[in-house]
């Protein structure tokens, strides 16, 4: 996700496993959606082991971000338009 640097993001988990990220989103976020890898967040395909859980708390999105050398980060970004788009396009709300 090359555009992550252009966003005002907060790192929630660093060097986490995909499972730890999924568990965090499912237990800590007020709502979450399970998506397949390739689902677009900020126009970039998400990397992960399906199901990839994306969390929403109001306008704040919590999602995994994976790089080969640094593992998976769970990051949080406040962006109303993207949160709304995820609510409209993600396949199914789980919570």
């Amino acid at each position, binding site marked *: 996700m090359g555009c992550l640097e252009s966003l005002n993001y907060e790192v929630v988990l660093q060097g986490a*496993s*995909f499972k730890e990220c999924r568990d965090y989103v499912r237990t800590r976020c007020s709502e979450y959606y399970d998506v397949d890898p390739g689902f677009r967040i900020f126009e970039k395909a998400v990397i*992960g082991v399906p199901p990839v859980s994306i969390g929403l708390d109001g306008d704040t999105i919590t999602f995994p971000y994976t790089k080969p050398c*640094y*593992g998976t980060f769970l990051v949080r970004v406040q962006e109303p338009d993207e949160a709304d788009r995820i609510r409209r396009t993600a396949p199914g709300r789980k919570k």
Partner: protein
Amino acid sequence: MIRENVAGGKQAVLVLGCPQVPVQTSIALYLAAHLRKKGVVPVIAGNRAARLNAEVSDPDRHYTGTFIDLDRFIEDLADGKSRFNYYFTFIHNDAGISYAATVHSLTGATVVGLIYGEHFQEVADAIDFPCEKIAAHAVHNPMPLKKKIDEVLPWVVSNL
């Protein structure tokens, strides 16, 4: 571009992970060489450091061919712009599992996971999606993984 149609032959993509484990580059070149002998054109996808390790090791491109940025590779798969006949993914950590799962999910193809590193068994056991696993304890010495490739590559090329 649908890559499997390029030059009319079969193409394999070698999805490299972080080059922090020394055997990755030598195994990638070895695998690329053997794929070429079997008439399969290798394409290497990786981040900048992983690509440069392979490019510098093979300056005249005897074994490698096209290189693709890893992010571009994933985007092209997600957009349906690119498909290959074979997907070899280098896995030595959790991120490698995530990339392999993503390739499988986007293509529906069976991914061949080359699993190595100190914790290769733990990593292999964590893979629960369809994946042909070629796993060995290989960190500095590539021979254990090379032997496994020699054993299974003919089957992989014939059956996947």
